[in-house]
């Protein structure tokens, strides 16, 4: 298990209390899980993805990550409509363990871009993890 200081928490992303990240990429937002989440879960063996076109509010469950340890729900960091899902994760869920920031899970069109400002910065997320 990684020490907090060893975690990779890139700047330029917004983080949630539930360990998702959101990244603004032009008009859309990519969503994934943090290095802390993948380290805690261990090997991820299955990813349940939503359908393109599904609409969720901030905090809604949009899928699950299946690790050797448990089933974990994924929650929306921002409200929006699913424009794309990372189908590479269907055959290779371990990509999330290998690089949780390259292995985005869904891409949404946000319905309230202002919600991004409510997310943790890398620094405040690190403070949260330090407790």
């Amino acid at each position, binding site marked *: 298990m*990684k020490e907090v200081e060893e975690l990779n928490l890139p700047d330029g992303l917004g983080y949630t209390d539930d360990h998702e990240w959101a990244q603004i990429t032009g008009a859309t937002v990519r969503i994934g899980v943090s290095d802390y989440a993948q380290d805690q879960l261990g*090997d991820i*063996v299955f990813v349940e993805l939503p359908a393109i076109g599904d609409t969720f509010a901030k905090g809604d469950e949009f899928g699950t990550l299946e690790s050797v340890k448990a089933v974990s729900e994924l929650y929306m960091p921002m409200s929006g409509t699913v424009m794309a899902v990372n189908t590479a994760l269907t055959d290779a869920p371990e990509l999330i363990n290998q690089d949780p920031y390259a292995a985005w899970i869904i891409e949404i069109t946000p319905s309230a871009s202002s919600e991004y400002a409510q997310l943790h910065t890398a620094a405040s997320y690190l403070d949260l993890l330090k407790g």
Partner: protein
Amino acid sequence: MSQDMKTTPLHGWHAQKNANMAAFGGYEMPLWYPSGAKAEHLAVITGAGLFDTSHMAVLTLHGPTVRALLQRCFSKDLERCLGPKKTPLIAGRCAYGVFLNSAAGVIDDAIVYQCGDQDYMIVVNASMGGPIAAHLRQHNREEPAAVIHDLTDKVGKMDIQGPAAARILGRILNNPAGVFEKMIYFSFKGTFDPQNLPGGPVELIDSTPVMVSRTGYTGEFGFELFVAPEYIEKLWHLLLSAGEAESILPCGLASRDSLRAGAGLPLSHQDIGPWVFSCNPWTFVLPWDEAGTTFTKEFLGAPALQATDTPPCTLPFAGFDPRKITISDKSLVTDLNGTPLGSILTCTTDMAIDRVGATIVSLASPAASGRPESFVPRGLCCGFVRVERLLPAGTEVLLTDGKRKLKVEIRDDIRPDRTARKPMQSML
């Protein structure tokens, strides 16, 4: 780590290797190392894995009345337990069974080792040394009374499991050919304490005494090794070095759990426990006569069992992909219409198996058993359910956590082509 949590002598090594640790049976134990539980699970299927199992408890029993005591308290009939001819337990052989209470509930499961004419060893689960010793003392009625020692935390134990286990272990033993000769499944040689427990001599290359038992908790070929606690770190490092060529991996409790579930082995206090020990895959440890209708001995719990095999039933299952259900107050088993059938006892993912058509195939399966040439298993959810009626193999049921539903199939067996019983000569 909470202050009352116990550790094994290898705890510092686990921490230094950044193992993900968790509480189990009162001990802080590794769940997995940075290589990950999937790699550890697959290592035991294709090569070798090494497990720290010093959290398990060892008892020794000495004296002319031990056998009578065990016949009264242990489920196996020690006079009829070896091989197809059901011959008596002898020195150098061991037997798996359960200790039942008078209501036929399981206190714990155990392996009983006969070490000499009047010397036995019992291996039970973490934190169960005290309760089983107390239970045996309560029933220790004959004269002279059996001498019972609870050696909890006084014996070092580790398991080397996987098809490469004998080749690796052989490199660190004196006279490996002699040790492995005629070492059949559920036999053992040596002792961890030559002063007090007969057996041996089996030694590491530096003359350290060791007990080598051809047993394990993975369903795969391998050994459980017992040494005095001061030698455990040495043995651990010797095996990891000796197994480098086979890419041996230290393995944590997550892979131990997924391996044993796929092998159809119960976890005590989860799959078996304080309910009547009947209608489950493990009733072969009861002393059935040849017709399977009456018991061949009197033992604690037998009247409550009444030699019946009635529901609720504990049954193995396997799913159709790696998804599983987290067990909670809300999780349950239903039929395909959603009518409740019972509870989920174990639900994990065996990462070495997948379905090829309707058949479950393992990474260890030969091509002749239907393993495709480039077989990359995704893993299958598997475990045990406890349901109100006996369901035949092939029955499909739903597992639910209150939100999601997973269809799984009741099975007779889960992971095929396991190696635990393979002839020793084929594994050297």
